[in-house]
């Protein structure tokens, strides 16, 4: 641990940023191209006529007009999914085990961050903070959320997973589901006993809701909210930091060693239990940070907030190749884009037959299709059958 900050490996910082940029641009471009082609094909169809009747625009104009906003939304949610997916992927890489309770770790992080902000708001501190101060306080909430969820992840590992490490695969998975359910109710119980509320709303402060104008084209304004920018920047920073930790530090090497072969790593003098706890800590903190960012972007959380994003993030991790950090990034981005496009366009293209309510099903279908046809995911290594 002493020398892991010895020399900063710039490559490991720039490389993931470059990768992320490629993923964002690639996924966005691919989806956009597909939508534009679809739009061109659908000119003159029933959907086109319906649009003309109700909104006065053709389907091509409608599609292209909405494209920038849809892309931005997709990118934002994609980064959130990527951040959560990293937690799943890290634990899977090290233990070959799906940590089902990760969705609740995400929720705990969200709650702790939001409660911290609500407390600060109650003390009147947030109202007095300027723009820079608001960022500072948000950062504080982020750290609190990360600490809480990281701690909870380690606790869960110690209590519910470690005794089961040598059991057949079925057993820890069931235990994980049990932990997930128990945590959901514990969050609900804590919330209702202390605040009497079921859901919590993040207080408004700072300039997070303000809009930053990116482009003005022919009367249309393409803008992005400051909070979306915060989410993206924070997520990128975390992803880069994690990548650096795993690829360029000695601790990271230990993690990779344990992931590759637990017993040999132990023979090499690596404290396997400590490394596994560390993995849970790091993965959990990322999930918690994702939770606070989610709360910032969408303002409202409840004890069951983790379920859907959890499954979708897992689908993203599998899509990218579970066990593979870069894969989690790619999977998150692709899933976020597809979901955003589906939500925005599905209803219009099917003339209301299949509307935005099918948006969630898209993630599930992707999950099923990927596992069936390409279980290694887009970037995964060959996953061998456990003998």
């Amino acid at each position, binding site marked *: 641990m002493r020398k892991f900050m010895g020399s900063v490996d710039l490559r490991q910082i720039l490389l993931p940023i470059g990768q992320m940029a490629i993923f964002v641009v690639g996924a966005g471009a691919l989806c956009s191209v597909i939508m534009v082609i679809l739009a061109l094909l659908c000119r003159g169809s029933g959907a086109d006529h319906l649009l003309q009747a*109700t*909104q006065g625009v053709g389907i091509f104009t*409608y599609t292209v*007009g*909405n494209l920038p*906003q*849809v892309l931005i*939304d997709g990118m*934002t*949610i994609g980064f959130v999914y990527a951040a959560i997916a990293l937690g799943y992927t890290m634990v899977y890489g090290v233990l070959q085990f799906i940590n089902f309770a990760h969705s609740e770790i995400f929720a705990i992080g969200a709650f702790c961050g939001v409660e911290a902000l609500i407390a600060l708001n109650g003390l009147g501190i947030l109202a007095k903070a300027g723009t820079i101060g608001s960022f500072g306080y948000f950062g504080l909430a982020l750290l609190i959320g990360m600490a809480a969820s990281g701690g909870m992840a380690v606790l869960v590992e110690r209590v519910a997973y470690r005794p089961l490490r040598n059991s057949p695969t079925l057993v820890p998975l069931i235990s994980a589901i049990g932990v997930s359910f128990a945590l959901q109710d514990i969050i609900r119980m804590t919330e209702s006993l202390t605040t*009497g*509320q*079921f*859901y919590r*709303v993040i207080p*408004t402060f700072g300039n997070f*809701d303000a809009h930053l104008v990116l482009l003005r084209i022919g009367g249309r304004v393409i803008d992005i*909210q400051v909070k979306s920018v915060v989410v993206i920047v924070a997520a990128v920073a975390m992803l880069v930091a994690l990548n650096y930790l795993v690829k360029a530090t000695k601790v990271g090497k230990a993690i990779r060693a344990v992931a590759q072969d637990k017993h040999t790593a132990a023979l090499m003098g690596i404290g396997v239990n400590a490394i596994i706890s560390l993995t849970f800590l790091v993965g959990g903190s990322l999930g918690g940070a994702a939770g606070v960012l*989610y709360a910032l*972007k*969408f*303002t*409202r*959380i*409840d004890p*069951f*907030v983790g379920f859907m994003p959890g499954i979708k993030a897992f689908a993203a991790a599998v899509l990218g190749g579970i066990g593979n950090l870069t894969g989690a990034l790619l999977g998150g981005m692709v899933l976020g884009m597809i*979901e*955003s496009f*589906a*939500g*925005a*366009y599905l*209803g*219009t293209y099917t003339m*209301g037959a299949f*509307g*935005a*309510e099918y*948006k*969630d099903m898209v993630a599930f279908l992707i999950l099923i299709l990927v596992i069936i046809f390409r279980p290694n995911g887009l970037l995964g290594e060959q996953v061998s059958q456990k003998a």
Partner: protein
Amino acid sequence: MRKHVSMIAPAVASLCLLLAAGCEKENKTIKIATQSPLSGAMSVIGSDIKSGTQLAIEQLSDPLVKMGFKVELAPFDDQGNPDTGVANAKAIVSDPSVLGVVGHYNSGVQIPSSEEYHSAGLCNVSPANTNPKVTERGYLEVNRICGRDDVQGAVGAQFAKSKGIKSAYVLHDKTAYGQGIAEYFQKEALTQGIKVVGFAGTEEKANFDAILSPIIAAKPEVIYFGGMFDQSAVLFKQARQKGFKGMCLSDDGFDSSDAAKIGSDALLQGAGTYFSTVSGPANVYPDTAKFVTDFKAKFGNNPQPFAAQSYDCAAILLKAIENAAVANKGKLPARADVTKAVRDLKDFHGITATMTFNAKGDLAKAKYFIIQVTSADPAKWSANRIDQTLDIAPPQ
């Protein structure tokens, strides 16, 4: 021998316990049961349905207590699940001291559960079930004091028309409640000549980005959301942040001060936020104000939507039981008598309205209010402005 004794003794002891536990005292207890979701996502509303009933029992059971009865609350958790609701209904029905049920919150749970109430003749007064099917079956036992989807949705559309709205985007929360109202709104809007630019449902609770982008681009003059405030307030806030300038319209699921807590200033922007409800705001109806104060004092939170209606349901049941007991010369009335007494009530003064039931179990005349949100402060929710009042009879 000792081994046998050591096993017989606990056996006998437990036997005595069983007999004691099973013995029933002479029945002077009246119970009013509630069925609402006390766990899960809807527990916030369901808890307050139970609390509203509890408050009513505490405040209004004096006449019955003077007659020598003990009045108790028997709360049940239907978990928002039809199975649990039916199982609870059977438990409720098999308890002879239960003379009335206040419930449910989900029409999907109420409809199968009420089959049980109907076959036992047990009276059910509902504070929150808005699905028309609830009373269309014509059961004597089933009543409701809230509005019906087919009326409330139409009211919303008529209000929009009266404000000169020409285009609407309709959303709902994919529950029986929200979708029902939204469908009726759409139907009436089309009849009134309002263009329905889109109709969509979503189970999403927080991430409305994908759904809002096409809505904002379509520039409707009003967004109508059928569903509960914990979704609609978030949606309206996000819509305002994306630059929506038109009107936001919702149903009585929006009627909670927590909507102001969630939506805050967003609710005042653009062309304003309105919602329809059968329950008038507290500043116009002093009884409601007293209820809100008492509720907050006893339970610590502001009452959620339908808590006031639950209070009224319990009040109706208590009054009907009292009338039936008086008619029965002070003895415990039969369930059928209570059921009949509920329907016989004329112009009962509740805190939400003055009520008489028609032959189907709907309120013979319901007053609908369209209320505009005038303040982002949850404490001032009762002071919201009434924009329109309509007296409407339900479909016959």
